[in-house]
């Protein structure tokens, strides 16, 4: 299972592709369950990069826990939440994003 992630060009904030747009939360990102879906996400990412919406586009491994998408690697978990040593900042500090996640 993979989802598409990138950083927004204008402010560098980590984003995930969901529902036809880029979300600041990973929780409801579009999941690719097979190679065809991965190729589709990759094509979307390449277009978004070419359109200068996002930079550093990547497909990352995820699992789904209670219906919510969670990244597998620690690096991506930290990108999705914020610095583990400053839980008062980053996405984890934003209740709206936390709910969405």
């Amino acid at each position: 299972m993979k989802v598409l992630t990138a950083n927004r060009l204008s402010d560098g904030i980590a984003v995930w592709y969901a529902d036809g747009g880029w979300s600041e939360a990973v929780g409801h990102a579009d999941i690719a369950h097979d190679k065809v879906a991965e190729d589709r996400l990759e094509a979307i990412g390449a277009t978004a990069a070419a359109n200068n919406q996002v930079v550093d586009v990547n497909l990352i491994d995820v699992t789904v826990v209670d219906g919510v998408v969670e990244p597998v690697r620690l690096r991506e978990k930290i990108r999705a939440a914020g610095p583990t040593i400053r839980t008062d900042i980053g996405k984890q500090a934003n209740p709206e994003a936390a709910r969405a996640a």
Partner: protein
Amino acid sequence: MYRYDEFDHDFVEARVAEFSDQVQRRLAGEITEDQFRPLRLMNGVYLQLHAYMLRIAVPYGTLNSRQLRMLGHIARKYDKGYGHFTTRQNIQFNWPALSDIPAILADLASVEMHAIQTSGNCIRNVTADHFAGAAADEVADPRPYAEILRQWSSVHPEFSFLPRKFKIAVTGAERDRAAIQTHDIGLHLKKNAAGELGFAVYVGGGQGRTPMVAKKIRDFLPEADLLSYCTAILRVYNLYGRRDNKYKARIKILVHETGVEEITRQIEAEWQELKDAELKLPEADIQAINAYFAPPALADRPEGDVAVKQARLDSKSFSEWLDQNVVTHRHPDYAAVTISLKGIGEVPGDATDSQMEAVADIAEKYAFDELRVSHEQNLILPHVARADLKAVYDALVEIGLATANSNLISDIISCPGLDYCALATARSIPVAQEISRRFASLERQREIGELKLKISGCINACGHHHVGHIGILGVEKKGSELYQVTLGGSADENTSVGEIIGRGFSSEEITDAIEQIVETYLGLRLNPDERFIDAYRRVGPAPFKEALYAGETKAA
């Protein structure tokens, strides 16, 4: 300190205008990321895990109050209320929007600061002893030479696209506080028998995945030859340094593969062509730069002795801070103060916007407006009258920056690690915090004595783990963080690279392992004056291996 002349002002302003235009064109989609990336890196803008990161140059770690106040302002207005002081004596902001970078750079330019050459394969910020100009053991202030090197290396047309980045450090004392032997070029400012100033020149030091201690290639280079000799070194490197493999592209690899004797011959041959030409530094120019670094007029303040003696009696905590964070100054009525950015359990090197502003106020009031950033990620007040030490201490207590742990086990160097950095393979800050909390007792820390603990979250070694008395390297193994321990590293005049002690430790195990190492040291040291590093050099790794792994060996 150095003041921009007309040329500097015009240069920095032109660069701000140029890069602002490039940012606007990028945001408008007129240039691609591939085109923009090298441009943003040349201006200190990285993309990290959560956002962009802006690295701002603090030349040879020297700041004035106005500049530190501006950094506080930037932290508050454009970032999340804090900044991170780095092992290159710079400061990084972790959350700036790309669209705000032009405004930030304009603010920086207004206080004679910029972010030029804080990234890229060029000559980076030249670093220096953080006690420069104040240290009692100094032959001469190394900063004028660092400034000369800064001017020479800024957008140097020949050296802007080197095989890899290039770092120079300068010290003016026998006791090396600038870690010069871990740099591409290390310069030790000294006097010869005739009393003339010059440099011992070291080349090819570095950390990263292939740590090397620099080799001394010249015992005395006259000061007038500084630029011609550095040019000769850079030319040889630029010509022969490897460009086929970025992991083998630093000058340390070239020195290692070529051999010290041969590379010295090549450098000296190149220098013969250059030494008597336009790069020879005129005495008048050296004097002109020196004048910028003229020490403040330090009036005699003999009342300091009595004031300090009385304050010691009144306050145990002041007395401990004095013992740990205050060092001798060349003027007997003054002292140099280390402001620890390593509060127990805090993030090493981080300071909030209001702390930066308060420290700027203290420097303005009590320290002749001078501040330094140390490569150990602390701030320094280089000139404080002993009579004012108690007032400075009280002001630091108010802002939570009076931790008396300079050079102790909780004075940890740590890179940002996987909490921020896109290159990191493991977290380093939480490890630093847990060790700091474990050894929170100042009494216990003082009992242990000088101990340099340094943590990196990947093999690039920004946290200097190779040269920590105890070094910790975080790696990713099978999806988990694993921490490798090295012992016996040192970054002073007796630089050494630490040795890996054995298998790594999980994040749950690492603090216990460090405590075990420290307890082993306490058990075997000859006396309390034998520092950890001295004891390790005497006994070697065996007792530490035994303490850490003996059970495992027997079980196996």
